[in-house]
């Protein structure tokens, strides 16, 4: 792990990974931060902006129900202008591991409240986070733990296995037994399943007895943690993953023991670490990078397991990020520099552009979902098609990436349709400098207008404000030549700024990150 970042290029790269994209001045602020990079982290840990309260305010101020539109308003405001960027960025990554979706989950109020669980617990201990996720009514509804009850002989019904299965497969230990560096533990040549159907059935019994709490109006609450109903709980003896759960434990005692078993399972540190690395930094981390983070998960240096502050810091400050090292082709040892980086998630590419252009909402009361994330980007916060998120963690597109046994999950949603729609929404954002409609966004184009006849200054502004110094020489040269050529042809300001910005937003330089 590195302890200082004093190079502007490294600072810019760091900010692309740890925030929704740098804004003007962010790189300098990071370089000059009191207390250095540690100080920056401490400052970020201390900041926290919640979503539900903001969504509620938006609904009240605009006289609308607290629906998905109000929740998205809060999400845009927190993501684009919130000062707790690290927390918000990590919460967004966590929302793609502990998936809850409006597709089967509750409405805007419940989802905003669930997102707050991720925001609040982003830097908590892992077991605290996992328990909060488990008991949130949005999760209770989405994965149907709410209402699951002990086997009923009379009615021939059984406990619901949905949450029991997914909490193991997706939220903690994963399918296969893993070494600390992420490679599968082999039994001869065969991978070893981390749990059995018997474990799922037993854990389903452990987790019986929970239901939604009531709000003051007597309706099922979508914001208060679930409560238990002793009658519904199976209080017989159980055994999960080789651990005995004694008879007679309450629903709460059984739950606490189950969380402890998953938290202490040897797979959990490496399984969760790798997923977070992929979401935040690079698609193909070397085994040694995964192992370094997993070891911090096991022990933060003070003897604490699952300290998410330490885990996130280890992910963002790993030496491989500074060196630009990634997994070698064919998963070989050594390293590759070509394989370093990732394709940006479409939503992140959009937030990057918005923050660079300092986009503002025209409605002083709120942000409308001007880009229309779900229908246009192949992804949107808490709107995945299922608990399996927007893409497979090991997805490899046909061709070089698959052939070299590498992964690039985000390509999974770069379909013909979504790439066209993303392009159209990016174009809409470029044009929005002249929009005044209340549900629209806008940005100030004058710095570009003022420089459009001075190609060198124009390019300097682009490189500094949109790429934060990371623009490639080739793209720089191309855009500059384009601008000069169009200027020589007496082409007007609109066409020149539009062409250059269009070329920038769709460039592989902008849509990928290193």
């Amino acid at each position, binding site marked *: 792990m590195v302890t200082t970042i004093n190079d502007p290029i490294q600072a810019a790269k760091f900010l692309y990974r740890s925030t929704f994209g740098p804004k003007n001045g962010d790189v300098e602020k990071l370089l000059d931060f009191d207390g250095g990079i540690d100080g920056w982290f401490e400052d970020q840990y201390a900041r926290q902006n919640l979503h539900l309260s903001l969504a509620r305010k938006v609904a009240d101020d605009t006289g609308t129900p607290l629906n998905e539109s109000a929740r998205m308003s809060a999400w845009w405001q927190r993501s684009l202008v919130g000062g707790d960027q690290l927390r918000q960025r990590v919460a967004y990554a966590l929302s793609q591991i502990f998936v809850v979706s409006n597709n089967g989950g509750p409405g805007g109020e419940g989802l905003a409240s669930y997102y707050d669980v991720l925001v609040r617990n982003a830097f908590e201990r892992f077991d605290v986070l996992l328990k909060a996720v488990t008991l949130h009514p949005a999760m209770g509804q989405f994965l149907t733990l709410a209402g699951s009850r002990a086997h009923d002989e009379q009615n*021939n019904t059984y406990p619901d*296995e949905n949450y029991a299965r997914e909490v193991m497969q997706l939220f903690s230990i994963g399918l296969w037994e893993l070494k600390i560096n992420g490679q599968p533990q082999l039994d001869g040549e065969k991978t070893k399943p981390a749990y059995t*159907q018997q474990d799922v059935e037993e854990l389903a019994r452990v987790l019986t007895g929970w239901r939604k709490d009531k709000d003051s109006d007597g309706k099922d609450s979508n914001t208060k943690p679930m409560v238990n109903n002793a009658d519904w709980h199976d209080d017989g003896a159980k055994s999960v993953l080789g651990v005995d759960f004694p008879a007679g434990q309450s629903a709460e005692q059984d739950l606490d023991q189950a969380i402890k078993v998953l938290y202490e399972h040897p797979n959990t540190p490496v399984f969760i670490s790798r997923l977070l690395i992929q979401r935040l930094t690079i698609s193909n981390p070397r085994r040694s990078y995964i192992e370094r983070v997993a070891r911090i998960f096991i022990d933060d240096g003070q003897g604490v397991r699952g300290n998410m502050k330490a885990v996130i810091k280890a992910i963002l400050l790993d030496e491989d990020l500074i060196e630009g090292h990634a997994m070698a082709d064919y998963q070989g040892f050594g390293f590759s520099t070509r394989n370093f980086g990732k394709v940006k998630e479409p939503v992140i590419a959009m937030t990057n552009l918005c923050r660079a252009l300092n986009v503002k909402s025209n409605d002083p009361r709120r942000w409308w979902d001007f880009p229309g994330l779900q229908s246009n980007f192949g992804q949107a916060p808490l709107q995945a098609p299922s608990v399996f998120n927007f893409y497979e963690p090991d997805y490899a597109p046909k061709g070089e990436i698959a052939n070299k046994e590498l992964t690039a999950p985000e390509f999974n949603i770069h379909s013909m349709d979504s790439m*066209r729609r993303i392009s159209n929404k990016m174009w809409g954002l470029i044009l929005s400098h002249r929009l005044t409609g209340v549900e629209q966004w806008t940005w100030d184009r004058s710095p570009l207008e003022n420089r459009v006849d001075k190609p060198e200054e124009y390019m300097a502004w682009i490189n500094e404000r949109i790429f934060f110094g990371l623009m490639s020489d080739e793209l720089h040269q191309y855009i500059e030549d*384009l601008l000069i050529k169009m200027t020589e042809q007496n082409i007007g300001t609109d066409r020149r700024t539009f062409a250059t910005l269009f070329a920038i937003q769709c460039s592989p330089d902008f849509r990928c990150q290193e």
Partner: protein
Amino acid sequence: MKLSRRHFLKGTAALGATSVAPALTGLNMAHANQDDYKALVCIFLFGGNDAYNMVIPTDDGAYQKYEQARRNLAIAQSDLVPLNIASDNGVKLGLHPAMQSLKSTFAEQNATVIVNSGQLVEPIIGANNPNSRVPDFLMAHNLQQTMWQSGAENMNDKLGWAGRMVQDMNLSGSLSPLMSLNGEQKWLRNNHVEPLVMTSEGAGDYTGLNNSDRLGAMMRHFDEKYANLYADNYSTTMASRYYENDALDDALASVGDLDGFPQTGLGNMLHTTAKLIKVRNAASLQHNRQVFFVGLGGFDTHKDQAGTHAALLGQVSDALAAFYQEMKAQGLSDQVTAFTMSDFGRRIMANDSGTDHGWAGHQLVVGGAVKGGRAYGNWPDLTPGSEYDYNNGRLIPEIAADQVNATLANWFGYKGELEVLFPSLKTFPQNTLGFL
């Protein structure tokens, strides 16, 4: 003046654009032959369809066992849609009342039910072998979906079975004949040609590209080489997606809306599928074979199943019936076969108001090539503890998914070894079933 993208494609050579046509590199090219045309249409029911409430016995004896097992989730016997078909062991079958619209297709003997099929790596029912192997991670959604799409023994293969199948066939076309209207899917992955992934809206406009400055600027990125893996692959991906969209737009421009399709998610997907079949000979397609993937989610009915499931089955039935009628109208019903797949069937015993993940289920197959008038497979004994009971009403399949898949591949014209395509078949007495 509104200019089409076509004009710009021709007019931007000066800005350095070159053609990156999405050619079928590696596939054996052949000319489209109208007589030889065939299409497979997979309708994937995501989440695990409760097939035992989709196809229900109408006979008193079998119905009573069903009702006893299902209790308050049982569909009333008097509400069933009778099909006048029976399983191999003589159990008469009916459909869920929401599926009335498919009745006439069954009556025309152009639809059937594959009874109690599912993922198997070797026979269990009748094998008398207490050590019969079962597939890994039964009841896990994504892995079971993967097995349906890749083959029971091909989980670790990066390619899907439809993708591997067409690699060995003479397929024509400039745009990929492997098409998904429901996201990127493993079923279609292969080593030669990227599947075409679209929505039911088909193609559309790049609104920013109504101007040659910007089109030329984007095309500059298509041809650029990048030292970075992701940037380099992003560049080729954006080019392919752009050209695919353009070619698809051209092809679909020649066909208007077709009649009779319900305005539902699945209805829209099958509507667009029918359009793509209709324009298969368009210059940018020229397909003598087509493989389609469409899907519908929401079948993971752990809770409050009754109403949800009825609505989903109604959507499947209405869309499938409309699709069949359209194929008849196009004179292609014998050449197009549609079939359902789902993660798994659901447990016979209920949860509180829903059902949990199970194993075996039933599949519907629709098309003029179907040898209808009967169902295929034995109706299992639903009594707890019967030889079909894996545990607590999770039923053991008797027909292997790979046997169903091999039958479809064989009908489609796959000439390779079926046991190479589906290695699990070696353990079964028959590679294919007689339903096509």
